[in-house]
């Protein structure tokens, strides 16, 4: 899976990075075709942010190489910087400036011709529903507004490649949906996006391809459909009255999907077409006179995915992601 540096908008080969004794990245390969979205999925401390910081020229890899639109992120860092936008969970905007001033500042620093800066800022404020708050100091913005401004700031110079580091972490469901919509629009306009997320659902909804990382290594990758085929797109949990019934039900239902364990009287099933299978499951149980005492249908979480891929639960890392610690204290 050698990166096709000529065709791919973003490519990486063997990226490795250590922070002291902590291996943040261990030989990561990536290839993101132009105009597509790559979802980098993984738990806290998996190395997602480190990948983004290397690709956006903020830090250098210890070894390996990476390219954005064919430009080497280390040797041609400045050429890369003209072509990328970066937005993230920290909403790196200046609290003492107004929304408009923030965007104009970024406009100047991204070297846009002067006459385009003001109209571009206005256009973005309008698009991100910040026009009314444009002349308010950002300190007074809500979390969602800050996040929208942060994304707007990443788009000032119309970068063809966009990096979004956990763009919806900490947003409420409404804010998340709005942001997803914006990302879809950008992709429809031809932008290439690399986004990191801890949410399987988010990666599924937005990405053309998903790369699952854990402890600095890629542990799975594919299209959302491929990964879901592997993981099951829906988790059905059926609780029964006692263990005998649960054992019978487990055998009975095995043909509908892959089992994801029995916990006492509750059996778990990962299936690929949830709603249709659910009807079959209930029919099968009914035909054997098995009456469930509880029933739940849910999307698989990152936790389920990890259990399937690695055989273990997502760990709360003992050491927080070193790159974020180094830059932002306990943030």
């Amino acid at each position: 899976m050698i990166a096709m540096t000529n065709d791919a908008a973003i490519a990486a080969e063997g990226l490795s990075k250590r922070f002291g004794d902590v291996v943040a990245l261990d030989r990561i390969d990536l290839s993101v075709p132009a105009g597509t979205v790559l979802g980098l999925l993984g738990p806290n401390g998996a190395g997602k942010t480190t990948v983004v910081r290397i690709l956006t020229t903020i830090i250098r890899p210890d070894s390996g190489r990476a390219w954005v639109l064919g430009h080497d992120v280390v040797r041609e860092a400045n050429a890369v910087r003209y072509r990328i936008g970066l937005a993230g969970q920290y909403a790196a905007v200046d609290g003492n400036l107004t929304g408009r001033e923030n965007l104009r500042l970024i406009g100047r620093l991204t070297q846009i011709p002067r006459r385009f800066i003001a109209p571009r800022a206005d256009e973005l404020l309008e698009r991100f529903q910040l026009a009314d708050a444009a002349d308010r100091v950002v300190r007074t913005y809500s979390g969602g507004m800050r996040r929208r401004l942060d994304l707007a700031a990443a788009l000032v110079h119309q970068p063809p490649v966009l990096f979004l580091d956990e763009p919806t972490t900490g947003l409420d469901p409404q804010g998340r949906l709005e942001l997803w919509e914006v990302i879809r629009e950008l992709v429809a306009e031809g932008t290439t996006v690399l986004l990191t997320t801890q949410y399987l659902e988010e990666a599924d909804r937005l990405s053309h391809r998903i790369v699952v990382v854990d402890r600095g290594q890629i542990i799975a990758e594919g299209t959302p459909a491929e990964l879901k085929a592997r993981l099951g797109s829906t988790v059905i949990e059926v609780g029964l009255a006692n263990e005998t019934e649960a054992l019978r039900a487990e055998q009975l239902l095995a043909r509908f999907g892959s089992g994801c364990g029995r916990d006492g009287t509750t059996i778990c099933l990962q299936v690929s077409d949830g709603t249709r299978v659910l009807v079959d499951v209930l029919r099968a149980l009914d035909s054997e006179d098995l009456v469930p005492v509880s029933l739940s249908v849910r999307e698989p979480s990152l936790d389920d995915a990890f259990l399937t891929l690695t055989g273990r639960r997502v760990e709360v890392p003992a050491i927080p992601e070193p790159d974020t610690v180094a830059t932002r204290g306990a943030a």
Partner: protein
Amino acid sequence: MSLNTLAALAPIQHHGLGRIPSAASDILAVTWRNLLAYRRVPQLLVFSTIQPVIFVLLFRYVFGGAIRVRGDSYVDFLMPGIFAQTVIFGAMGTAVGLATDLNTGLLERFRSLPMARSAVLAGRTAADLARNVFVVALMAAVGFAVGFRVHTSALEFVAGLGLVLIFGYTFSWVFATVGLIVRDPEAAQAAAFPVMAPLVFASSAFVPVDTMPGWLQLFAEHQPVSVTASAVRALTLGGPATSDVLQSLAWSAGILLVFVPLAVWRYQRTT
């Protein structure tokens, strides 16, 4: 990739070719941004001016009567020292400002932009120089109000203030380095104090050094705050100024020569 996005990008790339004008423009943009903070958070400016005003009042009216200086007027001796002390205290703001930017992730964004690498540090120190111009002018006004008089000429007085501002700019680079190393605004302030206190107090800023023990006199007489205070004294009270002015400029040049590369190196290595 759509052709639209590539087309939209083309003029931007061409603009980026002009390197030198872009560095100047980036430094200006960052300076403007830092100065706006003083307008938006006036407390930053108020607190950095209240402290020197209190020093003036304290030394003029509380300690001044007990301090013997050559010549008649302690306030004329005091104010040049106050100017030097003010800009050093002010330079601490450079450390706090940089550490704050590191913490908010703003510097992280700046590092991903096609801007001049020098702009963050140059813009920070330039903004602090502009703030010092304001604070020093204010202190001069306070000085005149409590009886300070210039015995030479307006030109020499302005030259003295200019020397102080150069001196303050120099220390902004020292504290920029401190801020980048400690990375936390409060720690930056705490770390700056032990650097600052001996320079400000073991000096001729507030008292003549000849009452100090011999070993301390040696330091107190030649250290940068003292020679700068002495130079400004000579420029406002009269007397031979050349030697002290040159010593102060030499200190500033020497400190810049060490700390500009050190701060830049530290900034580039900041991950």
